[in-house]
Every structure is written in structure tokens, then in C-alpha cells.
């Protein structure tokens, strides 16, 4: 079954054709959700009763953190598919996701710090969430570093898959141990920025922004994957036909 699926839907040629058709739709979806989220979030959502307008950075911060974690999950799934079923598209998807994941993680950290300065009075606290995201950045960077030293394509795909799989097994353990560590060390009490009951008028633009970030990720991912596939298959006939 999987072999059939691989032949029919996961072949590079078919993927290239399907993605060509998908790209404009992704751009449209991204533009719609991004425009709605940005305008509603920045101008129409009510100001927070404690943080005033300062909270509006949430519309960048939370989507980028969410996207970063989603990207790691995507990479881990692709890693399993690469190792077990040798699906080429999965390997390409994993390789192309990694730098995007690193950038989104960095964006989450930077926006978090900018938000933290007026709210907590400091750019950085060793809060459990911040620390976990920092470690996630290290995982992405380690992945990229390993990617950069292996020359042979197949070996690179397989080695990075193994690393991504250890990452996904360890990520929950790291996350909970960091929470444990944080409660034990009695960090700053203000550190919890969880929004337990967010008003719907604040929530909808947030959801829209999360969707927009995900569409953006998929859009860039498809562009990168198409490039990568053309490079990897540059000797094959479908590439020559596609480029004519």
C-alpha cells in the first residue's frame, strides 16, 4: 500500500506538479489570514487591562513559537518516514524545514524578550517555557550543523533523521524536566504569561495569525522543496521536462 502511495502521490514529479497548483492558493490564504489577523489584532482587539497595548506582540510571538514547535513535529514525522519507508519527499521536507524552524524559534525568542522587557523589567528570565524554546533552538542548530558536515545526500538524510528522532523522544522529557527545575528553583513569580481566559475578540485574530504563520511556513517550505528536488533529480527526465 505504502509502496503504491509512494509511487502515485509521493513521486517527485507529481509533487512538483501538485505544488505548482498549490502555490497561488497558499499565497491567497496567507494574505487573507495575515491581513485579518494583523488589522484586527493591532487595531480592533481590546487592550489588555494590565499590559495595555503592549500585549499586542502576542500576535507575532505566539504564532512563531507555535509554528516552530509544529515544524519540529513535522520534521520528526518525516524522519520516521525517511528511515522506515525511504520516502524521498519526506527527506526533502525534513531537510528544508530545519532552517525555517530555526528562524521561527529565533523569532519567538526575540519577540519574547522584547515583550519581557516592559512587562517583567528584564529581557530574559529563566522561565520554563523560555528555556524550553531556547533548547529547541539548540536542537535545530545541531540538526543544521550535522546537515552541513555530511556530503553524501542519502547518508545525510538518514543521519539527520536519527538525530530528529532522538530529539522528539527527548523533547517532552527536556520540557518537563525544565518545568520541574523551574518550580524547584523558585523563578520570578511573574514569569507565567499563560493567558488562561482570553477574550474571544483577542483570540480570533490570534488564531488567524497562527494560521497565517503556518500557511507562510508551508509556502516557503514548498518553494524550498521544489528547488531541492530539482537539484537532487537534476539528471532525470522529469526535471528536464519541467524546466522546459
Amino acid at each position, binding site marked *: 500500500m505504502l509502496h503504491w502511495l509512494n509511487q502515485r502521490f509521493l513521486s517527485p514529479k507529481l509533487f512538483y506538479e501538485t505544488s505548482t497548483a498549490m502555490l497561488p492558493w497558499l499565497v491567497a490564504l496567507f494574505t487573507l489570514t495575515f491581513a485579518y489577523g494583523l488589522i484586527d489584532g493591532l487595531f480592533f482587539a481590546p487592550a489588555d487591562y494590565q499590559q495595555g497595548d503592549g500585549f499586542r506582540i502576542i500576535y507575532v510571538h505566539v504564532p512563531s513559537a507555535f509554528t516552530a514547535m509544529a515544524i519540529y513535529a513535522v520534521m520528526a514525522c518525516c524522519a520516521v518516514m525517511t*528511515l522506515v519507508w525511504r520516502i524521498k519527499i519526506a527527506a526533502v521536507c525534513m531537510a528544508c524545514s530545519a532552517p525555517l524552524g530555526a528562524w521561527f524559534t529565533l523569532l519567538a525568542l526575540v519577540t519574547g524578550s522584547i515583550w519581557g522587557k516592559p512587562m517583567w523589567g528584564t529581557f530574559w528570565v529563566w522561565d520554563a517555557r523560555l528555556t524550553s524554546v531556547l*533548547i529547541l533552538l*539548540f*536542537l535545530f*542548530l*545541531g540538526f543544521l*550543523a*550535522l546537515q552541513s*558536515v*555530511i*556530503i*553524501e545526500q*542519502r*547518508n545525510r538524510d*538518514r*543521519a539527520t533523521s*536519527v*538525530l530528529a*528522532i*532522538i*530529539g522528539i*523522544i*527527548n523533547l517532552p*522529557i*527536556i520540557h518537563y*524536566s*525544565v518545568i*520541574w*527545575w523551574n518550580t*524547584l528553583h523558585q523563578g520570578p513569580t511573574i514569569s507565567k504569561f499563560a493567558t488562561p481566559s482570553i477574550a474571544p475578540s483577542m483570540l480570533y485574530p490570534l488564531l488567524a495569525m497562527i494560521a497565517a504563520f503556518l500557511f507562510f511556513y508551508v509556502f516557503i517550505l514548498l518553494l524550498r522543496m521544489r528547488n531541492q528536488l530539482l537539484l537532487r533529480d*537534476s*539528471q532525470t527526465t522529469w526535471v528536464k521536462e519541467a524546466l522546459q
Partner: protein
Amino acid sequence: MKLTFHNVTFERASRPLFSHIQGELQAGDCLHIQGANGSGKSTLLRILAGLMEPQAGTVCWQGHSIFAVRASYQQQLHYIGHKNGIKPPLTTYENIQLQCALRNGEHTPEELEAILKQLRLENLRDTQAMHLSAGQLRRLSLAKLLLQKTAVWILDEPLTALDSAGQDYLLQLCQEHLAQQGILIIATHQDLALEKIKTVHLNKKTVPMPSLAVKPTPLDEPMPNLATLSRSIATTFYHEIKTILRQACSWLTPLLFFVIVVCLFPLALGPDPVLLHTIAPGILWVAALLATIISMGNVFRQDEQEGYLDLLALSPLPLSLLILSKLLSHWATHCLPFILISPVLGALLQLTLLQELTLITALLLGTPVLCLLGGVGAALLVGLRNHGLLLPILIMPFYIPVLIFGTSALLAAGFTQPLSGYFAIMGALFLLSSACAPFLTSIALRNGVSQ
């Protein structure tokens, strides 16, 4: 008995090395692979041995893909590559013992002595392999051909470095192997005076051999005999320990590193006993982490240089068990020494007695996790050049849980709080990593060997 290969194509850096190689070998057949330097002879042999995977095409043993029936194929295979797979710190005799264990064979000492005699190495029985000449090492690597009868021999330039008597002896062995209905695949530049010889010339486009579809015949899976298996694994463990202990700079380095790093902190932060007591858990655990990770950089290095990893990958024993035994020996020689000395350093940092006991227990539970995780990282870097200090960057983030629970246990012991929870979690981490890490390491190692 049938070894077939069909449409085998291999490319390196998107450039085809050879393509559409095919052929069929039956009992008593000899395949002579010829070609200029760089034409891919060694690569083809590694593909036929199952060490590398072709980009396209299949290699089948009795009609099954060799990757599907890896265990039974490797049981029937001897491969001798460019590198001899000898451990330099071990003596000639110990190397033969180790090869015997890797093949999961059972031999009496007399039989092993007889093999030494046949290889004309009996005078060098107790000489460390590092003192042997290239030709003598080559002879030693031939020992596995005598240890166990297998159906398929794959020999890569086996005649290099051998003197004429040695070459004659090897060719005689090959002749006997063919006479006993074995399959021989050999790459050499010399002409071979063997019967029923087929030749593949990698530089010429035409390959003169037909390839037939072979109906898969049922294979008898090698039955794991637990007693032999555990004895073989124990032998590899024992020899790994001996190898490391004979290289003092290997096992002393992490110990001294640990002591020096711990001693730097009081010098940097001042001798205040209260301060030192507060930060001691962190210092000791960070030092343990660093000492372990620097030792992990060497865990596969020598084996890779000597070609011993190929032997591990081709052993009929389960690779993850061999890796577990290797990592355990690494732990016992590199981590145990600094665990034993840690109470002394703890005393220098004003730990209480309960904390000292906690420190030893936590290190005993935590450092194996560090070794197992480090093993995966080290295996990922096998076969790469210029990776420098990549290992700590890859693996250190995964050390965070051990660091957190290790230091938390010590802090709790400082306040005489209950400790069982910390130990339970560290035990769980140990069990989880010993279940997953050897398996992932074996995937990474096979991948590393194949490049």
C-alpha cells in the same frame, strides 16, 4: 546457493561510478572484479557485502534481498576489506579470539593456536598488533577465513602487502574454498589461476553476464543460541576493556579533566565554604557532563580507522548488542574512574555525607545515560571528516534532564529531603535510553560505515 545482483548502480555526488552491473554466482563460482583505480571496485564489493546500498538495483542471496535476510546472509559471509579490522593494542592471539567472538564461533584455545601456526604467526602470539608489519597484519586478518566455513568470501585486494609465500597460501585457500562449493568474489590487479572464473571489468560498458530472476528459496534463520551469544558478547566486552586499559591516555583523560574542571571553580569564585556548598552540585554535574562528552568523541574513532567497525556491522551477532557491550565498556573505563574519585572532590566542595552518597548513586545512574546518548552522537559522526567539536553541540542539549535531576537530587540531599523520586526518574531515564539508544546507534553506525 545463489548470489545474484541485478542492475546495480552507484553514484557518488550525483556522478555515476558504475551502472547496471549484474550477474549471478552459484556454488563454486569465482567472480574477479577488475578496473582502473577509482572505477569503483571496492564500492561494488562493499555493496555485495551489504555494507553499502546501491542507488538502484538489488543484491539477492537465495532470491531474497540481502537487507531483508541480513542475519542469515552475514552468517554465510566473510569480507576482507582494505583495512584489516585489527585492534592495535591487543595481541595477535587476543585479536583472533575477538574475531572468533564476533563470528559467534566456538573454538578451543588449541584450535586458535593451530590457526596462528597456519598463518605463520605463532612466534608473535603475545605481541601487540601495533608492533606487527603490514604483511603480518594482513595475515592476521585472514584468520577469519580459517575460523569458520562460510559460503561467500568477498576479498578486496587481499594480496597486497603479502609476501609471495603468503600470496600462494591465500590463493590455495581460495582454491580449496571453491572446491568446497564456495562463492568467491575478489578484486585484484593480478591474474588469477582459478577455475570457473567470471570477470567483471568496471571500465568497460558491456557486462558479459546474464541476470536471471531467481525464485526465493526458504532460508533457515540462524537460531540464536543464548549461551554462545552471551559468551561472545562477554568476550567482546572483555577485549574492549583490555584495549582501552592498555591505552592509558584514553581512560585517564576524562578522569583528570573532571578533577581539573572541578578545581577551577573555587579558584574562579573564591574559597567561601558556604558558596562552594551551594554551587557544588552544579559544578560536579557539569564537570561530569563535560568529561563524558569529551571521552565520547573517541569511542568509535580508532575502530573506524582500523576498519573494525566494518567487522561489527558484518557480524552475525545483533549489532545493537555489540554496541551496548562497547558502550558499557566505555562507561566502565571512562566514567567509573571519575565517579570513584568524585567523593574526594565533593569533600573539597563541602558536601555533607548524605550528599556524597547521593552523588555517587546519581552518577552511577546518570552517567550510563550520558554514554548511551553520546554513543548515538558519536555514531552519527562516523565516516565524516572535519567535524571538529560537533559532538557536544549535537548531544549536550539531550543531557539537560540528567543534569537537572542529578543536581536536584544533590540539592535535596543537602536539605535532607526524600530522594527516592529523583532516583526513580533517573532510573527511568536509564531504562529508556538503554532501550532506544543502542537501536538508534546501530542505524547511525550502519549509515556511517556506508559512506
